[in-house]
């Protein structure tokens, strides 16, 4: 079995195809469901027909089987499955950055909203900061774009949700 030389940015080292890892994760997840989560989270007492745990169990077994198929298929192909997806550390880092930005925006919104106690007070502080962060994550935009995103966009959302739909935000 031979593997092409790895290039910078390649998703996985040679021999470890993304789908092989995916198959392993699926199987482990299914086993976790079957032997821990389903037994502790579903109570079969009082069922008249089929037990409530039957569908989750059947689906978990199905997922375990599909994970095994993915593993077997990749081992057979030697890590060069053309249908495999691509996932890099940069992708994961970017995802974490975006989720962190949204989460921080929500935390600020909640804290400021709770402290001031008036509708949209948290939004007016957190949303411009969040939008500036999202724009920064996206690209180096001209200054007017930051200003527009920080002021005009929250104003339109505020007008639409508070005056138009009468829905409160913290």
């Amino acid at each position, binding site marked *: 079995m031979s593997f092409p030389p790895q290039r910078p940015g390649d998703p996985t080292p040679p021999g470890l195809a993304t*789908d092989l890892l995916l198959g392993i994760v699926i199987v482990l997840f299914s086993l976790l469901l079957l032997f821990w989560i389903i037994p502790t989270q579903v109570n079969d007492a009082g069922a008249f027909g089929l037990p409530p745990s039957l569908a989750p169990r059947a*689906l978990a077994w199905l997922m375990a089987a599909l994970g095994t198929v993915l593993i077997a298929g990749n081992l057979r192909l030697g890590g060069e499955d053309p249908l495999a997806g691509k996932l890099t550390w940069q992708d994961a880092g970017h995802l974490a950055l975006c989720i962190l930005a949204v989460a921080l925006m929500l935390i600020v919104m909640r804290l400021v909203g709770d402290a001031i106690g008036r509708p949209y007070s948290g939004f007016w502080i957190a949303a411009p900061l969040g939008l500036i962060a999202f724009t920064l*994550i996206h690209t180096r935009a001209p200054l007017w774009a930051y200003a527009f995103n920080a002021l005009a966009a929250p104003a339109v959302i505020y007008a639409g949700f508070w005056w138009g739909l009468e829905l409160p935000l913290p």
Partner: protein
Amino acid sequence: MDIIFAAMLDALSLTTFLSVVIGVMIGIVIGAVPGLNAPMAIAVAIPLTFTMAPLAAIGMLVGVMKGGGFGGAIGAILLNTPGEPHSAATTLDGHPLAKGGKPRKALQTALYSSVAGDSCSDLVLILLAPTLAVFALRAGPVELAAILVISLTLIASLSGRSLTKGIFAAALGAFLATVGVDPETAAPRFTFGQVDLFDGLPLAAVAIGVLAVPEIILRLQEGLRYRPDSSRVVANSEGDDRLTFGEFLNLRRTVLRGAGIGTAIGALPGLGTTLAAFLSYAATKRFSTAPEKLGTGATEGIAATESANSAVSGANLIPLLTLGIPGNLTAALLVGAFLIHGVTPGPLIFQRDTSLVYGLFAAMIMANVMVLIIGSLGLRAFALIVKVPPFIIYPIVLLLCVVGIYVSQGGFFAVGVMLTFAVLGFFMLKLEISIVCFIIGLVLGPMIELSIRQSVILLSRNPAAILDHPFALFLFAASPFVAWLLIRDRNRLSDG
């Protein structure tokens, strides 16, 4: 009859009318933005409908669906950037025609063909659905279970590039649909002591999380390399750049053929708009008197693809309204919207919510007229949307997703669910796991489980009674065969 007239009048109320108009505008605008598409527009619009009456809410989402259909053509024609796979067929002739100095003609052809195709399939829906619902009402849980199983087989066999991953996505969606109170014993499943999960996972938060947010995160990532290049937009007219009525009349055969293909394909779950668009294009090439012109900027090519892919949207509601089965992503999101407003799609909808169904039919016709009017009047303005820099659009859409879920689902818990599913959706996108299958599995899962459990209770005393359900037996037996046929031809038929 009185109910039908009352429903039509309901649809003509100012609230519903404005909802449809706003929906159409949201659909066209979001559909025209490169990288965004109609299902994403619906997902983003669902939270906006929470405080609305059911008809106004569904009418708005139908408006988004129809507006998004035409909006997708704008980016495809002017920027050669299809927002959805089916719009790729429109670029074949749309972009060359626009490049040849006729962008207005290309957009007008797309608009008129799209509205004509959509109207034809709506007409088929309005005429067929009530009759089919009567037959569907005769089906018991055993037949329903069989229909659901074969539908899911069709969808899983055709969506995405890998069958294994398609089935896994559907199974994961169906598994996550079991979160909440068990329908038979009322025992909580996978709630981890969280009262918020007793009603199941909030569908809008899951849909936006898995569908819209990961796409935006991907676009934000592209921004590190991408610089807006408005010079690629082809919007300058040369000479006479209008589609005359006579020219459109000459396209009637192409449009009708496309509408027929789109309607037939849309009525079957899983086959999707991409197949309809390319099949219609191929048929037009086959029957055209000048097939060599297709691909070089022929209005025939635009009319063929736009009429077919728009016709799918109306026909998709046939299995949705008569059986409760969503045939594609857009229909699955509409199921979510129906459920949020306390309406369960399926044959009983024609008995329980008659006024809503006929109001919906009227709203669909109204939405077609609005797409035509708004599209015609705002052609120049909508053409400018593709020039709006992405660093303005994507951050705002991301904030809109967060705010929409917060206000509609009642707080930070739903936003947390959305972010969790955004992570899942991002990995699914990167690993090429079908999100369509996941969402449809999530929507169909509870129905399949309930119908199978009801069937078991019905047959538990006499298992041989299954022989009294020959239609169900036939469908169960046909499922593996259908799957085998589709897998064999999946490269030709696949939507993704």
